[in-house]
């Protein structure tokens, strides 16, 4: 039959096509991606250009942590600020500091790291003309208002508080007393920059040069950044592997798939949907450790309804109506820990973390919650609408769970609903324009492991991240006092007292501390996350 031959011909073509498909790319599967001790790790496309003072998110930050070293570095285990390039930072009045550098440090292009490398970098970072998103990190240095005015053009190109004494020494004058200021200097924005950065900015951005344990080998923006160990590195924390390949993933689920298939060595963000399987897939190659991140519910104090003395009771009541333990167990699979203060466990007791500081107000107690809310005059407007951004993260799930918990406690299934906002950008712009009408999700990832960083930027009057515009004279006074203390232990105690004010007013409801979660292949070992939930790349060993 003639027809039959044609059917065969067509079927044959399909078989060939399918076979070709199956063969394609088959050869290179399996095994790790790199030889010679190269660790491959998942990465997200950094949002901003890779400049120290312009990087404010984790993805860019982890690169800077490999490429750059500043005056101090936070210990990957304890979070303590330790001298790196700084030999010593002296002060007698908590306001004037003299920084002395260690000898022998160079950038990977051979240029020496001098006090000018720091002063130039800081002046660049603070200057309004350069649009650096972390410029406010320099706001404690004298002369910041000249180089970064609230409006108009800068009157000066340098910070008057910075003075180069010689190659190894410079002085810093702050515009207020700030005893723990030297401990903030581990933040990447304070890294020194070589002349190449200023001379040929574009080529520096395409291949950054730093003084850290790694150098950039190749950088394809948006897809891959290869770093190799730099033999000339001066610091004590030399790299224990041959290099790191950071690969951009479109989705962290895809990265997880690649890890389980053996194509990737390390992911530093286990997708929420995989948390159920991660133990079975990775066993003890799954890390789940506390990070310096706390999630809270913030309130719009510019809305008169929330800014009444009675509203304090309502806020406490809402806090008591949230079953934190149940939500962190079921929705977050224990990758969050119920919060009992407004800081983070990574600070340690000496650093200012105080478990249980929140007391009863953070303990689930539906009966008391209902009583307090009724005493306080009920929820302003009759309904609680918790705003969150719906585009990233799985915020909808926990907001719904929180609302559910509140509704159950109040015996009213309309007492609380979620208020999704389309994009993160829109969410942020509504917050910065003070357009929130009810509580909204707030998260804080610490810049440096200090109790100051968990309190002052968030609750001090007019502070940069005081999104709810909360203000309290007593709190402000205690913070000022803590900053002026020259003794660190005394400063921490004063900050804790200030935190007590936050508690008594329930300025924001603490929800839970976030953990960092990571997973790695059996090719690598000695993997850990630092208090910022970033892998300690230089310590990873390849077997």
């Amino acid at each position, binding site marked *: 039959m003639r*027809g039959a031959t*044609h*059917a065969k011909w*067509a079927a044959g*073509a*399909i078989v060939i*096509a399918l076979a*070709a*498909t*199956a063969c*394609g*790319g*088959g050869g290179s*599967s*399996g095994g790790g991606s790199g030889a010679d001790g190269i660790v491959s790790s998942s990465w997200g*496309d950094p*949002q*901003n*250009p890779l400049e120290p003072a312009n990087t*404010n998110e984790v993805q860019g930050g982890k690169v800077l942590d490999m490429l750059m070293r500043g005056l101090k570095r936070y210990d990957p285990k304890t979070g303590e600020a330790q001298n790196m390039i700084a030999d010593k930072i002296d002060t007698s009045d908590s306001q004037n500091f003299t920084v002395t550098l260690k000898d022998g440090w160079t950038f990977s292009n051979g240029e020496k790291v001098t006090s000018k490398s720091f002063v130039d970098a800081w002046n660049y970072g603070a200057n*309004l*003309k350069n*649009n650096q*998103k972390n410029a*406010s990190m320099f706001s404690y240095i004298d002369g910041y208002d000249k180089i*970064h*005015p*609230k*409006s108009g053009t800068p009157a000066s190109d340098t910070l008057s508080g910075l003075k180069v004494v010689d190659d190894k020494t410079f002085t810093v004058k702050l515009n207020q007393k700030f005893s723990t200021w030297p401990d903030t200097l581990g933040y990447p924005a304070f890294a020194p920059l070589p002349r190449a950065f200023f001379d040929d900015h574009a080529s520096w951005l395409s291949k950054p040069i730093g003084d850290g344990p790694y150098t950039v080998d190749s950088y*394809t*923006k*948006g*897809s891959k950044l290869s770093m190799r160990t730099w033999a000339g590195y001066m610091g004590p924390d030399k790299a224990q592997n041959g290099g790191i390949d950071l*690969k*951009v*993933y*479109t*989705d962290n689920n*895809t990265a997880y*798939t*690649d890890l389980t*298939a053996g*194509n990737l060595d390390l992911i530093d963000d286990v997708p929420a949907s995989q948390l159920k399987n991660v133990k079975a897939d990775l066993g003890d190659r799954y890390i789940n450790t506390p990070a310096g991140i706390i999630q809270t519910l913030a309130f719009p104090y510019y809305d008169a309804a929330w800014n009444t003395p009675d509203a304090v009771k309502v806020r406490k009541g809402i806090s008591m109506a949230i079953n934190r333990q149940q939500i962190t167990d079921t929705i977050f699979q224990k990758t969050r820990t119920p919060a009992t203060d407004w800081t983070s466990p990574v600070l340690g007791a000496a650093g200012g973390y105080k478990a249980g500081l929140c007391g009863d107000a953070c303990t689930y107690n539906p009966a008391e919650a209902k009583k307090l809310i009724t005493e306080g005059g009920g929820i302003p407007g009759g309904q609680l609408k918790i705003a969150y951004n719906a*585009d*990233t993260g799985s915020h909808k799930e926990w907001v719904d769970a929180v609302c559910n918990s509140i509704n159950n406690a109040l015996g009213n299934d309309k007492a609380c609903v979620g208020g999704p906002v*389309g*994009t*993160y*950008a*829109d*969410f*942020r*712009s*509504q917050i*910065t324009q003070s357009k929130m009408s009810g509580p909204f999700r*707030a998260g804080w*990832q610490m810049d440096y492991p200090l109790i100051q960083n968990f309190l002052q*930027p968030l609750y001090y009057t007019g502070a*940069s*991240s005081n999104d709810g515009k909360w203000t309290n004279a007593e709190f402000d006074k205690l913070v000022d006092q803590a900053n002026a203390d020259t003794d660190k232990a005394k400063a921490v105690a004063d900050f804790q007292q200030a935190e007590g004010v936050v508690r008594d007013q329930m300025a924001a409801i603490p929800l839970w501390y976030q953990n960092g979660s990571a997973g790695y292949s059996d090719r690598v070992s000695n993997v850990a996350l630092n208090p910022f939930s970033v892998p300690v790349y230089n310590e990873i060993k390849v077997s």
Partner: protein
Amino acid sequence: MGRYVIRRLLQMIPVFFGATLLIFLMVNVMGDPIAGLCGDKACDPATAAQLKKEFGLDKPVWQQYLTYMGNVFTGDFGTAFNGQKVTELMSAAFPVTIRLTIVAIVFEVVIGISLGVVTGLRRGRPVDTVVLMLTLIVIAIPVFVTGLLLQLLLGVEWGVIRPTVSPEAPFNELLIPGLVLASVSLAYVTRLTRTSIAENRRADYVRTAIAKGLPRRRVITRHLLRNSLIPVVTFIGTDVGALMGGAIVTERIFNIHGVGYQLYQGILRQSTQTVVGFVTVLVLVFLIANLIVDLLYAVLDPRIRYA
């Protein structure tokens, strides 16, 4: 014919402007993009104002649109928020997506049309029924299910392919993603070809051709298939644009850094320049693909003439 082409090209101008304006307005109503750039902190107002000025966001929308379109005609698509030129993003993303689209189209043409011819010629037979059922299943299952399933089975369980595509995205790594991307359209192509072939099989010219004693292969390829392909070509033509723009899901699953990924990032970060730039090019691709489809009609069926 020449006049027809010119008229079609002129028609493209209002479509082009309309589509870009709509996208421009849509991206702009989503709120202030600068606010999302500073993470969980508020941007300090001076820096925010400075950034807005740099990206031209401080001007009214109509003025932004005019400046933007003015720049586009000089080949300047602006700068994305991460400091990269949008043209740079395009030159990285489009080749990858074009390769993926080619793979998908080839699958559609080869598998889709072959299956369509086979089933169209033997309507009602077991082969026909089986293929019809299969296409129905493919159409019914969402692309991300097919994609994730194939990735899990072929990539992780059996290790036949790499579960993700490397940044260079060569053709051989794009075969499975291309098949996934093509799957639904492929099913439609099969069904369209089948119906069209089955209908034309009884047409007078086919009967004439058979009566003339032409070999069966010649009857099918020259006479039957050529006429039956018109609706199929229309479908595939419009599908080119749809595949390029609609690859977001497939690209996410297989970690392909193409147009879909860049658009997704652009939308998340509300980067007007990225989104509008990519959509502008996609609109052009759509228009040109449609034009080519219309011109192909005349080749397939000489009775179709353009005055």
